[in-house]
């Protein structure tokens, strides 16, 4: 402790800010330079497919029931072996998420019995009007792995009878 302490403290403050001048800025130059999202980041939804190209979503509406913001609308229709979208009896003929209502809580992900809906890593959502904020099934669905795996497609009868696959307990 000395009487010059106030002056010394002021000078130390100045020295601290001056030192910062030599440091590399931490800024990400956003549109060009993007930051990796975290593994459990909750971004825009993606509707998943099985490896054989069939949709995982079976149109059960559990996600819509779980949604606290009431952002999801699902309408189910019947599958046939001639025109098969997903395993089992039914598929989602309409699947809409209103991104203006969605709060990205991830409850839909938890509710889904087939792990069809997953919150992805896309956070660049912007719209010019309310209509384009409603994402339809076409925009949410994952692209097919190869061209011959599109849905709906004709499959051998009585193969895809079970709508919910055998699943291990979730690891993550």
């Amino acid at each position, binding site marked *: 402790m000395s*009487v010059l302490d*106030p002056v010394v403290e*002021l000078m130390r*403050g*100045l020295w601290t*800010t*001056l030192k*910062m001048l030599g440091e590399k*800025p931490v800024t990400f130059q956003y549109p060009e330079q993007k930051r990796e999202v975290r593994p459990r980041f909750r971004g825009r939804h993606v509707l998943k497919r099985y490896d054989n190209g069939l949709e995982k979503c079976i149109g059960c509406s559990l996600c819509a029931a779980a949604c606290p913001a009431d952002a999801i609308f699902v309408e189910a229709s019947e599958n046939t072996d001639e025109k098969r979208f997903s395993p089992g009896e039914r598929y989602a003929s309409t699947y809409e998420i209103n991104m203006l209502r969605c709060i990205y809580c991830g409850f839909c992900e938890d509710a889904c019995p087939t792990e069809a809906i997953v919150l992805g890593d896309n956070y660049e959502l912007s719209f010019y009007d309310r209509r384009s904020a409603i994402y339809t099934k076409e925009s949410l669905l994952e692209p097919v792995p190869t061209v011959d795996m599109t849905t709906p497609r004709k499959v051998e009868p009585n193969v895809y009878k079970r709508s919910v696959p055998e699943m291990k307990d979730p690891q993550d």
Partner: protein
Amino acid sequence: MITWDIWLEWFIKALVVTLALLTGFAYLTWYERRALARIQVRIGPNRAGPQGLLQPIADAVKLIFKEELTPGKADKLVFFWAPVITLVPSIIIAAVIPWGESFTAFGRTITLYVADLNVGVLYLMSIASIAVYGIVLAGWSSNNKYAMLGGLRSSAQMISYELALGLSFATSIILANSMRLLDIVEAQKTMWFVVVQPVGAMIFWIATLAEVNRAPFDMPEAEQELTAGYHSEYSGMKFALFFMAEYQKMIVICAIAATLYFGGFREFGILRNTIFSVDHTWMLGTWHITNWFLGPLYLLLKVIALLFGMIWVRATWPRIRYDRLMSFGWKVMLPLSLAITFITATGIILQQELHNDLYYYAGIPVVSILVGLFTVVMVYRELRRKAYERA
């Protein structure tokens, strides 16, 4: 006899000063934002043009096209004129600041200042005081209590610190034995006044920060308390005028600081008697060219360095409380600057009477620094006593 070429010369010089201040204002905003950003480990504006150099133009275009609102119950006339009253002094104050040696061209001597007043320092003082009117009137005419408080704070603060500022002006005047700014610059040929009178320069610097309402004395526009202070109700170009006035005042007051204490447009000490001196003349056959163009350059460098000081202080120190600001101004700055003026005058009389330069080069700085330290000790003891009483 005044002929057209003299008018033309005056016109061109006035135009140069005005344009220098206007572009200086624009690029000072860019400079401040970039420097602050780097201190805060950010990058700052870098999108508009290379290194963000077109950012001031983008800002200007934005402000010009913004809607201008006048509060319904405002005093329309005063509300309109207040920004103008603030802006004009900040430009015309630059008229007396010399920015280079005179040189000969077109068969006549061209001097690098707009006006050569023999009471230049007095002119600076008086014009600097006018600016406060604009701020007070803006605060009053807005019919908004925050604006009113901001304007009142500003006037009280400026009047309080103007005393210390004036006395540190006086110190420089005593050292140079003249109120003419060119003489003050000439007197610093051998030694800058900041070396002879460091405490005076310090007081000048602190009073300057208060005078241009910069952090840590930016009470009139303390965002947390007064939204934006006296210009809360101003928008669009009227706001831009206040902004311009503030930044131009910063530039001008840094130029004044450079002139009064840092050798003005003269070269740095080590460059004296070299080819980089402003006095050096190139003998190219029949052509004799003095280094007059280095004068503005040196002044610019000094202003940029001093402006960095202002930005640096803003990035570092928090705003001080208003009552402490006032008591610091009246109880510390004013007595200290009085003491400094007295010491300077005594030192010069001793030097002249005893014909010993030691009183000038050693006596004044040493005694001033001792008095400065004594002040720091007294402030410290006072703060300790108050803290003890509170506890």
